[in-house]
């Protein structure tokens, strides 16, 4: 069948900028950039309608490496700037690129507020658990006891779990991906873009210089089948090389079980529901950590909720319809005026 107006299909090349990528060789950023470029043709049919807005840090150089509109802004403020962009032009597909220092420390306030407002934007959080660009200080996600330039005896601060913070801020979409799984990254980035509302994707990113192998326990090729669980909506929560392990709820806790052992059957395994508006189970999944549990990957939460700019547009339309004042001249002549003759 011949279509009347064939849809122009974009490719990676349409988003590839002729610019030198200045991340360190081996940095997780390269794989993330590559996956985004693969995801974009599926999320957008017009590169002119895509904007990448970043804060400050290694991750935030991202807009210089992709052929869309781009704004490399201030440390921690990308979320605030993106809010203005999205409200000003809701037609734009807005991506925010940030790091663990940028969004969890200096931009923590803007981070939680964009989530609760639920603007339809996508946040890529490069979490390498360290400050890279300033050369190796601990970040709000550095594990307790982590030895860095500014914590020679180990940190004495509890780290943030970004997903936990996000759900506390009523995030409608939270996903987690490792930077060494391009397929998973692309799939999740597409889902994030298609979600209506603020999508947060935490990327376990490796910094080859200052926190090399920080995620190796989770992302290492040898261990990842046992140390990651890839969650998919409507599917049982299984992991392990042969999907022999799974999660059940016992009492008020999640528990790792093996199918066939102690009478556990496949039907007993929890089925992932990312669309449940009650975040209780999603919250438990987000908090899972080694060694007791595998780390949850994939889309953990994706729920429908009113979107800020849509509600705003509705109010603007309704107010305009109701009001008798439609120009500044009408405004100036409204209410109490006094005629001098």
């Amino acid at each position, binding site marked *: 069948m011949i279509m009347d107006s064939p849809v122009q299909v974009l490719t990676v090349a349409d988003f590839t900028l002729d610019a030198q990528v200045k991340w360190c060789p081996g940095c997780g950023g390269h794989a993330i950039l590559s996956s985004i470029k693969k995801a974009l043709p599926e999320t957008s049919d017009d590169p002119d309608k895509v904007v990448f807005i970043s804060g400050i840090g290694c991750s935030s150089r991202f807009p210089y490496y992709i052929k869309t*509109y*781009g704004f*490399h802004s*201030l440390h921690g403020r990308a979320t605030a700037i993106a*809010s203005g962009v999205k409200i000003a032009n809701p037609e734009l597909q807005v991506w925010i690129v940030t790091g663990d220092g940028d969004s969890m420390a200096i931009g923590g306030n803007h981070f939680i507020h964009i989530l609760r407002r639920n603007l339809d934007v996508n946040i890529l959080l490069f979490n390498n658990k360290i400050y890279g660009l300033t050369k190796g200080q601990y970040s709000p996600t550095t594990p307790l006891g982590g030895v860095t330039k500014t914590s020679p005896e180990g940190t004495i601060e509890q780290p943030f779990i970004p997903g936990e913070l996000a759900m506390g801020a009523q995030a409608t979409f939270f996903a987690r991906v490792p930077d060494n799984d391009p397929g998973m990254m692309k799939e999740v980035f597409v889902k994030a873009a298609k979600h209506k509302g603020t999508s947060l994707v935490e990327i376990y990113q490796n910094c080859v210089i200052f926190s090399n192998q920080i995620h190796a326990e989770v992302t290492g090729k040898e261990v990842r089948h046992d140390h990651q669980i890839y969650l998919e909506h409507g599917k049982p929560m299984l992991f392990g090389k042969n999907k022999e392990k799974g999660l059940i709820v016992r009492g008020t806790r999640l528990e790792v079980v093996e199918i066939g052992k102690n009478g556990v059957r496949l039907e007993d395994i929890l089925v992932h529901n990312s669309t449940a508006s009650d975040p209780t189970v999603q919250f438990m999944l987000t908090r899972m950590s080694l060694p007791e549990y595998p780390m949850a990957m994939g889309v953990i939460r994706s729920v429908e909720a009113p979107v800020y700019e849509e509600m705003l547009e509705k109010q603007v339309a309704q107010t305009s319809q*109701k009001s008798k004042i439609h120009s500044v001249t009408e405004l*100036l002549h409204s209410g109490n005026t*006094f005629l001098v003759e």
Partner: protein
Amino acid sequence: MGKKKKIIELDSVVIKFAGDSGDGMQLTGTQFSDSSAIIGNDLSTFPDYTSEIRAPEGTIAGVSGFQVHFGNKSIQTPGDQADVLVAMNPAALKSNMKWLKHGATILIDIDCFDEKNYNKAGYTSDPLEDGSLDEYHIIKAPITTLTRTTVAEYNIDVQTADKMRNQFVIGLLFWLFNREISTGENYLVEKFGKNPELLKANISVIQAGFNYAENIEAISTTYLVNPAVKKKGLYRNITGNIATAWGFLAAAEKAKKELFLGSYPITPASEILHELAHMKNLGAVTFQAEDEIAGICSAIGASYAGKLAITTTSGPGLALKGEGIGLAVMTELPIVIVDVQRGGPSTGLPTKTEQSDLMQALYGRSGESPCVVIAASSPANCFDYAFTASKIAIEHMTPVILLTDGYIANGSELWPIPDISKYHEIKAPHVKNNDPDYKPYKRDDKKLSRYWALPGQEGLRHRVGGLEKANITGEVSHDPLNHELMVKTRAEKVQRVANYIPEQEITGNKNGDLLVIGWGGTFGALNTAIEELQKEGKNISLCHINYINPLPKNLKEVFSRFKKRIVCELNMGQMANYLRSQYPEFEYSQYNKIQGLPFMIKELKNKFNEILKEI
């Protein structure tokens, strides 16, 4: 039957309404001001809020006030001191004594002048008995009792009845100033129109106050302030904050753009946010951000995407916005930052006025970070300067800081409603889709402004950001000479705004003995003082500056024509120091006041006379 009126005509009168912050003194003052406008007086008002919403009743801390100055001539300030004080309780009396003219009339609610309230106000003796009020004319009216009696026939509880005491005051003052009751009613109709019972009760209380005044011995004389000779036309009473909000709406209309305000509440700037939140019908969108930083950053985002973007704040908020302003300087995006100045540093005096953010506005950022700074100088002209700030921001692609202050922001004056069709168009330097020659830092030859390509536009994909960029191409650049070129270009761009602003005007002779230099919200007081001295034959002129960076091109020449110059401002001398740095060839003396209060005309005249004697 009422007594015969003895009427004295006056040129102008200042009335101060004072009571508990819950007594509705702002409402009463506004209602009285409106009635003055209706009969054709010129006027100026100023509210005097407390920092606390409801400080303990009856205490000095809880006193809230509203001053109105009306007259048959041009009225430019709310007045130094009051001719009439309305004191709803002893605390209101005590805290306002120093702002009274000798022989002023004081109207008190005698029902509230009891021992309990004397104690709360900190009186150690009864001011009505101890002789401290001997030089004043006291009207002791049982306002509470008579108001309650008047509304007894309505189904109204005592608390609500007591809130109507202010209408009794209105009635009494209407008789005292020979006004028709109907001129006070419109205000009530608008306020209580939906509740006819309450409306009727309020009007009957005005009537009761009016009748009471007519019948008592204490008021033997009434006063008449004739209409001011003003140009024909339609006027309205407007505060600086509302005028600022409306000026932005006018600019948006003339730029054919929607208005975006990203802002965080702060005294005394919040009314601009409140007002624009109600203007969705004119396409204005307000975003109440999580903090001052997000306020300006959301505005920068909106500007990047093509809106007329504004953020509003006061001194402490401007400090937080410094980083964002720097980004707007670097990305050369248009944005207007309004700083409604208040007493500082730190939290300082949130409800009091000051002009102490000038240096912060000019220099309070990292790096060489020039932006345009302008200042409004009266409540009504906040409209024009908000408009102009937007026009400069958009046409020159630069952040503009608009300075107002608590005094003109909350104060009001009568404003001849302008004809918007006569305002200039605002022409945004947009780029056509797919322009093959577009480069992010290619510039207009004359203005040196870059062009405004919006995300979403076809074929103009580019990247902006806070890192230094290469001239023209906009690529990230750390090249030393390029940086110097860009720093100088950004500075020159701002300086060239001087080619697009009016020359400095002066009030009075173009040359002479003494040139008084002021800026911003002190205009009313300075101009009144100088006009009075000029009438006395003194050789004195006023140069009141609205365009601060860049300064008007003829300013140096203006300065050179006077023997002496004195810079008057509500700070330690920030404008004086700025002028010394810009025009070091002149000497500047200073007159400064840092009390959170506006200049008084009297103190200005004394100072100027002192200097004139030396010349």
